């Protein structure tokens, strides 16, 4: 039965239940237990933001702290996946993929195709993304579009505790490599989550709310921003259909296109920088597949094309907010051909 728990607890529960169910599931990353080789507690941190807390005492041989060697341990996770394990490796900040990208996109992503369909690489790479914690340019990016670009990877971007648990369990059971993008500002958000194990299929968008006036496609934390905007707009009589694709690869194009065919208007809300982003990707999809249904130009609400700034004043301007979504919706609904 469902209880109200946090995004962090939902992820922890998913890992706990899958490690319980399947002894081939292992967890590794910097300070995933925390305190390896140190004189104090062996499970001191449980991940830098506590997501893996409590796993080490329960599964001591299967929760591995690593040196700060992302190439080696992400590659080890990939290699172990080809040899029968189901590793969940934590990259910590998604920005750190810069030092191990080869193992992700030249190795894990390619094996299946490059080896003629014979490889199975069931690895999950967890990474925190997103701005809002005043963590500046190298700890705040929303880099999921980069992974989405690479064939062979699946990219998951959960928007709530319910999505987080079900998508994590699906990621672990999935036989393809998965990049699991957790928004670091969402760990304390709460929601109803079943206590039982469950999976959410990849490539199935969640229609968060129905509406007839404009389709708002939003990713990850931007789903709640879009919902706030939709609440505001409902008061003005504008009905937003808010769609959370849940996974950027595979992408549920059908749900987006069907919605735009009904509403005739599209706003995409994407926390990443605008060039070659999910915003441009979804916009191109709709422009190509539903051009005849569009009654107004597409609007994109994204970060500016800059690194993430440090000063709180600037960072608050950087992150797309509900007011910008409201403005974009007003722009598309007020537009007359």
């Amino acid at each position, binding site marked *: 039965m469902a209880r109200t728990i946090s995004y962090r607890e939902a992820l922890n529960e998913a890992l706990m239940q899958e490690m319980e169910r399947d002894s081939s599931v292992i967890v590794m990353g910097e300070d995933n237990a925390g305190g390896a080789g140190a004189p104090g507690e062996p499970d001191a941190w449980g991940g830098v933001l506590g997501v893996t807390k409590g796993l080490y005492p329960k599964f001591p041989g299967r929760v591995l702290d690593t040196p700060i060697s992302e190439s080696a341990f992400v590659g080890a996770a990939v290699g172990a996946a080809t040899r029968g394990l189901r590793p969940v490796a934590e990259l910590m900040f998604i920005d750190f993929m810069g030092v191990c990208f080869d193992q992700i996109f030249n190795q894990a992503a390619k094996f299946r195709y490059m080896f003629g369909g014979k490889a199975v690489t069931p690895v999950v790479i967890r990474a925190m993304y997103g701005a809002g914690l005043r963590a500046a340019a190298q700890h705040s990016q929303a880099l999921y579009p980069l992974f989405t670009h690479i064939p062979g990877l699946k990219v998951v971007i959960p928007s709530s505790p319910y999505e987080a648990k*079900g998508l994590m369990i699906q990621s672990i059971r999935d036989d393809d490599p998965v990049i699991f993008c957790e928004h670091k500002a969402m760990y304390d958000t709460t929601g109803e989550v*079943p206590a039982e*194990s*469950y*999976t959410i*299929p990849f490539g*199935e968008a*969640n*229609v968060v709310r129905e509406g007839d006036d404009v389709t708002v496609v939003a990713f990850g934390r931007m789903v709640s921003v879009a919902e706030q905007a939709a609440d505001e707009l409902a008061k003005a009589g504008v009905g937003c259909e808010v769609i959370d694709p849940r996974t950027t690869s595979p992408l549920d194009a059908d749900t987006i296109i069907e919605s735009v065919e009904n509403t005739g208007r599209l706003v995409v809300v994407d926390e990443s920088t605008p060039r070659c982003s999910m915003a441009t990707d979804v916009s191109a999809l709709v422009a190509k597949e539903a051009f005849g249904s569009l009654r107004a130009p597409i609007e994109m609400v994204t970060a500016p094309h800059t690194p993430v700034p440090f000063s709180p004043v600037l960072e608050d301007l950087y992150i797309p907010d509900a007011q910008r979504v409201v403005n974009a919706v007003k722009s598309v609904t007020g537009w007359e051909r």
Partner: protein
Amino acid sequence: MADDRIGRVAMPKWGLSMKTGKIMEWVVAEGDEVEAGDDLAEIDTDKIAGTLEAVDGGVLRRIVVEAGAEAPVGCTIAVVAPADVPDADIDAVVKEAEEQLASGAVEEDEGPRQRTAEVGGRAVSYTTMGDGEDVVVLVHGYGGDKDSWLFVQEPLARSRTVHALDLPGHGDSAKDVGDGSLGTLADTVLGFLDALGIQRAHLVGHSLGGAVVTAAAAAAPDRVRSLTLVSPAGYGPEIDADYLRGFASAGTRRELRPHLLKLFADPGLVNRQLVDDLLKYKRLDGVDRALQTLLGTLLDGERSALDVAALPAKAGVPTVAVWGRADQVIPVAGAESLRPFATVHVVDGAGHMAQMETPAAVVAAVEEAAGRA
């Protein structure tokens, strides 16, 4: 001082997750005379639209929450009282309700209480409403759960203790169904009575649940005071096998929705929330296997594998049936085999889910069966 003849009509709590309801329409107007059981208002929850019935008789003195507005569960939305209660007293109650509403300090009716019983080594989840001596047990159908009774449980609970349970493999109960046979399911219902120390109960079953309660009554007639069957399975060979298999295998909204449309006379009832809730259930570990196992209990090729038509006569228990005329899953023709020993009400405006589309008819049927016990 509030007059105890003043009845507050509260926003009902239909199901555990309901927090607010929206009044779509007041069926009655201020000044109308109402009797207990009369329809008062159409209310939309995030799950499904339903009709609120009057608990107290009297005059509808005041509407507090107008049509089109939303109100939290437990909030007073109208006031019913005899005509001789002074306006000033009514005004005081309305003022208090409005203040509560404005401040948000509405005390939520705790609604159905969810509990778990251990039956045959499995956790069986159930909710209970009311505290009357007479006990009613509601048993849902294939793929359903205790929430499918949400419009029926509350009115029945006014004078009785009403339990709605989740069969194994469903809702919040354990997902292991064992062999999934009718006998196993019937034993679960009887075991549930044992677990709660209930000597005798009125059993109400829908669809597969109808066959289950029939089998339970045949196995232990002394435990069953009456049977109410809503579109029961097992009373004829016809059943929509495509629906059952489609429901079992559907993994996405797009796959599931067309099957759900077959359940209702009014397709508008298949809203996003209903589909999403069912998908959430279907994604739980073990549900797929449970549903597949139960398919084997329900189906023999394209026909029903169940035949319980001879059992009620054996049980000798008063039996009343309700069947939606527009039932596409188990056609109303099945009602014929019930007529020799049961009163059958074929109702308009309902499909396979009479307990959701015409709850008053189901409530009346239970009362009728209980009255003959």
